[in-house]
């Protein structure tokens, strides 16, 4: 067994291999968790500052992706009926072809689904030299002729901006040619920003300016909400749709799991936005509040308790007894199966530990599920989150704007003259806050983790190796890039991006799936074979030596 190190000793272990300059930077990204100091001078809660959303150091192996990945792969990828054309050499389109395992469920055979396709302008050398706009226009002509989409978007890859191709001008020109098709482009070249996070922001901006508000679909129901930052990995959205329907809450639009273009266009017809993945979509929530007066709060549907809590928040927000009762009835109906599943799996997992290094919200959200199994998350961090995702939104004003974040457009939003409507008065906000519902609030990951837990932003290979050696967690939550290196050391890795080809894990049924999954992985028989008999028992060792 690895010896028990204090958090400070562990931190020093992580840093000691670095040259001074790298160590100075990483030191600010490896933080020993400490809860709010209530006595701070300015009355604001303080946490230890995490250096997040900082540039990756060249040559230090990172888990991060690029702006294109965040824009195409994460935010827009899960929408089935916007035709996505990737403008660039072939790799970028190929690599983002269904790899995130987003699912979708067209309502009929006529309902288009372009998600299984991978469209690219497949730029060649001559396009780089002479420009690719002509090819892009022809590709759009062809795609529209073949597929007749309602909307078509263009994703810029690295060379596009550099050779001077103007995807926005092309989009405008082609839209004039095809007035029935909404055509828009994203300047999400891979070098923008410091990670995929830049791409989320770019996606939010364009969908907000070019899609939202164009439609007037109003799904029937008294309580209409949008779910922002839910991407339907492994069917999560299907489970949440089931739960919402049971509660009588209408999901107008999800950004963007199992979503359609029309839902996006009419997302302003709601009274509440629910934010799941704060990192990838908080921009949209803020902009919708400014323009339409739609308030938002943070929810988490990863974990049965968290799901129940989030549903109760929605009911309390509306304050309607009928809804409150119905939500309680649904929770009461769902919980026995949860308890039964826990009774099966918790005994073989309780007291074990997990570490989570994933995403911009998952490393926080999944702690709930592990907690329900009696497992503590002793170290966690995000790949591409910002300080607010760690420390809470109150730090936003103090986040320094650097060259990389400045390059991502902040669009100016004003209240819509006709459509702006205040949904909650300041008095009501105060009332809700008193009930524990903070509008526009997110406290981040750190307050919910134990003191002494190690927060590590943008974990790299070397640090993962030290963690395995020094704390040997029972399970490591990350992605496929990390999976096999972790498992080489005899520790199972649960893929929390693509769910290891299973799921759903959201909502109530998802929680049950997750309990069973973690039990299955942590207690798999193969881990017992990692050490040969002669390695683990001295007596056997001797006898094998003689036999050998």
């Amino acid at each position: 067994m690895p010896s028990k190190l204090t958090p400070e000793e562990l931190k020093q272990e992580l840093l000691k291999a670095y040259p001074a300059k790298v160590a100075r930077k990483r030191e600010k990204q490896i933080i020993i968790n400490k809860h709010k100091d209530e006595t701070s001078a300015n009355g604001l809660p303080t946490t230890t500052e995490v250096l997040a959303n900082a540039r990756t150091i060249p040559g230090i192996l990172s888990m991060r992706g690029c702006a294109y990945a965040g824009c195409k792969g994460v935010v827009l990828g899960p929408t089935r009926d916007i035709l996505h054309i990737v403008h660039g050499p072939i790799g970028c389109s190929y690599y983002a072809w269904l790899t995130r395992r987003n699912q979708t469920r067209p309502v009929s055979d006529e309902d288009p689904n372009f998600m299984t396709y991978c469209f690219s302008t497949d730029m060649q050398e001559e396009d780089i030299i002479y420009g690719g706009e002509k090819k892009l226009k022809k590709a759009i002509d062809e795609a529209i002729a073949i597929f007749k989409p309602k909307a078509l978007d263009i994703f810029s890859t690295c060379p596009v901006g550099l050779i001077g191709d103007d995807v926005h001008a092309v989009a405008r020109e082609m839209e004039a040619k095809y007035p029935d098709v909404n055509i828009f482009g994203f300047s999400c070249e891979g070098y923008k920003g410091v990670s995929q996070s830049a791409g989320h922001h770019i996606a939010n901006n364009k969908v907000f300016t070019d899609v939202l508000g164009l439609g007037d679909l109003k799904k029937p129901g008294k309580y209409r909400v949008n779910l922002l930052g839910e991407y339907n990995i492994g069917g999560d959205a299907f489970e949440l749709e089931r739960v919402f329907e049971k509660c009588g809450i209408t999901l107008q639009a999800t950004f963007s799991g199992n979503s359609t273009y029309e839902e996006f266009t009419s997302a302003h017809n709601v009274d509440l936005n629910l934010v799941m993945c704060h990192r990838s979509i908080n921009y949209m929530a803020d902009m919708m509040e400014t323009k339409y007066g739609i308030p938002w709060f943070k929810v988490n549907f990863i974990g049965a308790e968290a799901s129940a809590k989030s549903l109760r928040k929605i009911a309390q927000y509306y304050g309607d007894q009928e809804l409150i009762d119905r939500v309680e009835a649904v929770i009461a109906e769902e919980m026995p199966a949860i308890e039964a599943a826990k009774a099966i799996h918790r005994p073989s997992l309780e007291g074990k530990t997990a570490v989570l290094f994933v995403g911009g919200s998952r490393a926080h959200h999944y702690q709930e599920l592990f907690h329900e199994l009696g497992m503590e998350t002793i170290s966690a961090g995000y790949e591409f989150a910002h300080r607010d995702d760690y420390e809470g939104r109150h730090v936003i004003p103090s986040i320094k704007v650097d060259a990389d974040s400045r390059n991502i457009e902040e669009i100016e939003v004003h209240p819509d003259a006709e459509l702006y409507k205040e949904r909650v008065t300041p008095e009501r906000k105060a009332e809700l806050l008193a009930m524990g519902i903070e509008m526009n609030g997110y406290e981040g990951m750190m307050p919910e983790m134990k003191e002494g837990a190690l927060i590590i932003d943008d974990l790299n290979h070397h640090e993962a190796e030290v963690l395995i050696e020094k704390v040997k967690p029972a399970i490591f939550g990350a992605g496929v890039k990390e999976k096999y290196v972790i498992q080489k050391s005899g520790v199972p890795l649960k893929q929390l991006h693509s769910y290891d080809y299973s799921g759903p894990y959201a909502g109530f049924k998802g929680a049950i799936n997750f309990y069973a999954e973690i039990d299955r992985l942590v207690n798999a028989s193969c881990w017992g074979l990692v050490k040969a008999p002669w390695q683990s028992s001295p007596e056997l060792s001797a006898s094998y030596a003689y036999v050998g």
Partner: protein
Amino acid sequence: MNLKSTSKTKFTTEPGREVTQDACRLCSPLGACLAFKGVEGAVTILHGSQGCATYIRRYLISHFREPIDVASTSFTEETAVFGGKSNLLAGLDNVSRQYSPQLIGVATTCLSETIGDDVAAVLRDRVPANPEETCKVLNVSTPSYCGSHADGFYRAVRSLVTSLTEPAHETFNRRLNVFPGMASPADLRWLKRVLKDFGLEATVLPDYSDTLDGGLWSSYERIPSGGTTLEAIRAMGSSECSLEFGHALNPLDSAAVWLEENRGVKRLLTGAPLGVAASDLFFHRLQALTGCDFPAELQAERGRLIDAYADGHKYVSGKRAAVYGEADLVATLALFLLEIGVIPVLCAAGGPVNAFRDVMKGLVPDLEERGMEIMSDADFDHIEQATARIGVDFMIGNSKGYKAAKRLGVPLVRVGFPIHDRFGAARNRLMGYEGTQRLFDDLVNTLLSHNQEASGLGYSYM
């Protein structure tokens, strides 16, 4: 994934269109990353956005199910404007310090190529921050807008040879270079064993048989052990000859051509030893080089394979297949299929391959009479439409053909890269009588399984 809605809609596409729909190739830096994995102590650094390294790692890792490190020079907007020199230098120093590698392979991307970074000049003038650094640094130009992953692979192998192989003072008999192309780790292991059994001192380049299909670790391995040693690459000039597997290989990207022209090592070009005829030729060459008798074990393997062909002919003879993927693999598979009596009615190379039709015509002079159609630069939409028009009994190629095969209602035999929907891709065997046997069994069983599924009656005697 829901294929329901698309399965009923038949889209038609104009020939000569610009939009690539479901590509059948990956980008060239990926091939370079794979090739460098086959060199002992090597680390690849991609000169460009970090997304390239992340995507490429994800793709390779999902196929091999092994750890694969690819570093990046992590361009920002500033780097894209002012050039990548400082990022490259910082990246090299960091990789050098973290991994203590023997070799760093720098592969470019579309980004660094577009801005015109002169990587070779940066490397030439570079003074390592760590004075004790001993590693060799070399570069390969792999802009993603040129060719495919296969081209990136060959170019990287060639760059290893051009940068490392020294002029030789003497030539050693029974010393041999082998350039196997994009083979599976299991095929590489087989190849090395056979060469050893024949008493040859062979350098197989690249050799990722251990690095991409290794055991668990008792302690952390920063760079997994295995791979062709730098020493062996340096000495490749002293070999009697180079055996290079390939049919459609561009001579400008060929390591063996370079060795022949610059180090006087004779190049023997041959298709990969898949199928009886190709394996016979391969073993014949080994015999000629060594004077060894044809080993009895191989004789027996060959006998079993032909016996299997006889036993299985009723399932395969006269069937029609669509073959797709990397040009060399397509050509190799087409010859194998013809050998077992299957007509490869569609042979589609995913990459833009020069004169692929001529290559195929050279291998199968009567391909028109056999009804074989040849395509290059084909995407899966082209392949699906051609396959639907021609009519086939099965498709054979990488797992990305699944969607087309599903829509067409034909079975798919999975071969090549990537295989992301089946287990054990690293252990797929194709080479030699034994590898051919595995493929033949797999192929027959795929057809049997398809026929069995097609009936609701539950036949268990096929």
